[in-house]
């Protein structure tokens, strides 16, 4: 081995050691930052602010399964766009025929009540609907309107309970208690992925403190750089009914037309 090659070899080894050291330091910093210093509130804020695209299109299959295993299937298309303080969502049911053509438009405002419109083909017109009754079931699924919306961290008091694992993911387990009766639940306990800040599992407790529902991600994929739950389940622990939602198609940041989120589109589509 000549000197040149020796220097070169040592140089490579040194660089490798340096890289490993740097990576280790970064990890250690991460563990220190996210593992020990992060509060429940900060974890939920990270989860809330996790980048999920400026706009998105989903085609989803929804299965309603009763405790006897009887299934009902629904297909829906969802368009959503984040305008900063305003999130707009358009949902259109495309199957089965009895709800085909039913469309729903929601403007999720930050500091005031949401604005929601529904188009029912049988009614022949767009109807402004109440957005404050979040405890009602969303089209007879196990999701309530409250479950369908992103809950802002400031609406709850959060406590980091422990660290645990869910499937193959290391998680923070955070208890969230609603402030000022802002929810139908007395508390939620969420499993938040330590690496990706995706909420992987939620336990819902009623006002009497009894666990009544459970939300679980069955499949999580990274699509266009964004962690995307592609299969989720919401289970009613009281009556054994389940709602499974499977993402059949997803597109992020395609420049969804603003016109989709208009009353005109709701009526015309």
């Amino acid at each position, binding site marked *: 081995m000549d000197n040149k090659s020796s220097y070169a070899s040592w140089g490579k080894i040194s660089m490798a050691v340096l890289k490993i050291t740097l990576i280790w330091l970064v990890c250690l910093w991460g563990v220190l930052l996210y593992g020990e210093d992060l509060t429940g509130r900060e974890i939920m804020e990270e989860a809330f602010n996790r980048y999920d695209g400026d706009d998105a299109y989903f085609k989803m299959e929804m299965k*309603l399964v*009763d405790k006897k295993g009887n299934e*009902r*299937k*629904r297909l829906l298309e969802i368009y959503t766009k984040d305008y900063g303080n305003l999130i707009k969502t358009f949902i259109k049911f495309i*199957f*089965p*025929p*009895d*709800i*085909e*053509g039913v469309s729903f438009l929601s403007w999720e405002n930050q500091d005031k*009540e949401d*604005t929601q419109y529904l188009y029912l083909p*049988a*009614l*022949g*017109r767009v*109807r*402004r*609907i*109440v*957005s*404050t*009754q979040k*405890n*009602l*079931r969303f*089209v*007879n699924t196990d999701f309530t309107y409250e479950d369908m919306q992103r809950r802002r961290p400031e609406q709850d008091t959060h406590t980091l309970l422990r660290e645990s694992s869910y499937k193959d993911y290391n998680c923070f387990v955070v208890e969230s208690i609603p402030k000022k009766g802002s929810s139908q639940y007395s508390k939620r306990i969420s499993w938040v992925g330590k690496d990706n800040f995706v909420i992987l599992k939620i336990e819902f407790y009623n006002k009497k403190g009894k666990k009544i529902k459970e939300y679980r991600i069955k499949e999580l994929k990274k699509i266009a750089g964004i962690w995307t739950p592609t299969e989720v389940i919401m289970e009613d622990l009281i009556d054994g*009914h389940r709602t499974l939602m499977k993402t059949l198609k997803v597109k992020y940041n395609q420049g969804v037309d603003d*016109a989709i989120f208009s009353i*005109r589109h709701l009526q*015309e589509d």
Partner: protein
Amino acid sequence: MRYLASDIFKKISIYILTVSLVISGKIIEGEDRKESIEWEKRGEVFMRVYQDTIEDSRYETNQEIDSRFKWKNKFKFRSFPIILGINLEARYQALVGEDTEKDLDLLLKEAYLKFTKPSYSLKIGRQTVTWGKLDDIIVLDRVNPQEYKWFILWDKQERKIPVFMAKYDYYGNNYQIETVIVPFFKPSYVRFFGSDWAVFGHLKEVIEDGSYSQSIKNIIKSIKVHEKDRFSEQVLENMQGGIRVKGTFKGIDWSIYYMYFYNDTPTLRERTSKGNTVKKFLYIPTNSNLSQLVAQNPSGDDLILDREYSRLHIIGVDFETVAGNYGLRGELGFFYNKPFLRENFSYIEKNTLCAGIGIDHTTSGNLYWNLQFIEDIVFSYENLFSQEEYSHQITSTFSKDFLRGKLTFGVDSSYRISYHDWMVNPNFTYNFNGRLSILVGGFIFEGASTTLFGRYAKKDVIYFQTTYKF
């Protein structure tokens, strides 16, 4: 020349249908919908059977069968901002009784072309328009005529008769302007004689088969209701139009309307003064009124009543908003020259105001309720037949889902406070799989024989409906 205009518009409808059929043959459906034309189609087959609860007379229909096949198609062109809509319907309807009537119709329900741009759209063809905010009540929703063949057994949307019109919508930043031009007049379908649901029911048959003299029978038999030529022909002088401006202000959706329309439910106009006596007997069929009619020895034009449709100027407003957990909506319309019958059964036009307000809510137990209050005011009031100066009506809807929406129980009702007549429609629906559903329900009518619902007080029905959607 006026016939020429009518023919041209008929040809346009046929042309739209032909083009659509040619196009439909060239469409390839695909999951990604990358084809030049996107074809949305859906349809349903249903049959509804009404069973009369009590046989009150031998003229009554025991059963009514209404079966329909509906096929709705929408073609969206990717290269052009055009939508083509073709809705077809086949109907088989039967009134089963002593004199069974059967009808089989193939209808081009809707056929339109819609041209859309970001700031406007233009829709031409046979179509249906929904204006107003109230549910199942007609205050401002007057663009399309209604089919009253089965009285109100169908709800407002189902009763609408699509008509040929041009609809232009302009979309501003925070407002929208809608204009409709209806070139030819098409009245609502109202049957006067020969059916349980006809305005005068089986009156002619009752007299014909009754123990009356032949001269009386001849008089009643000779009573005819005629459509005036200018209403039955499709002529441009019957053109109607309306404009609606709508927007949102502080969470309230509002609209302002002006309409120059016909009152599309007919009023019967006498040709001679004796005709008023004819009307008096028809509306109040007592022996004394019959005697009074016969005493005048009517003949010829005395016994002919013309269907008349008044021109109305309508100015209106509506709104819709939410207040907490409640939905609120309302409509108000001022009607210039609405037709009424005087107590002597002659005809008069009065200005009226109609206002309605509705509130709805879903309870935490998932019970939905909807209440509406409607007030009618007749200006410059004088004594009118079956019309008070101030009249009030309440409608209600209650519904509740069971088994996660598979089973629904609903009750619709309407009570006309001023006339003490009412209608109740309870119904159960079971949905099997999102395609097949069955419904069992009933209609109960009560009130004095000269009132809207009371006229059908002997026509309570139960009904069974099965629907398959595809």
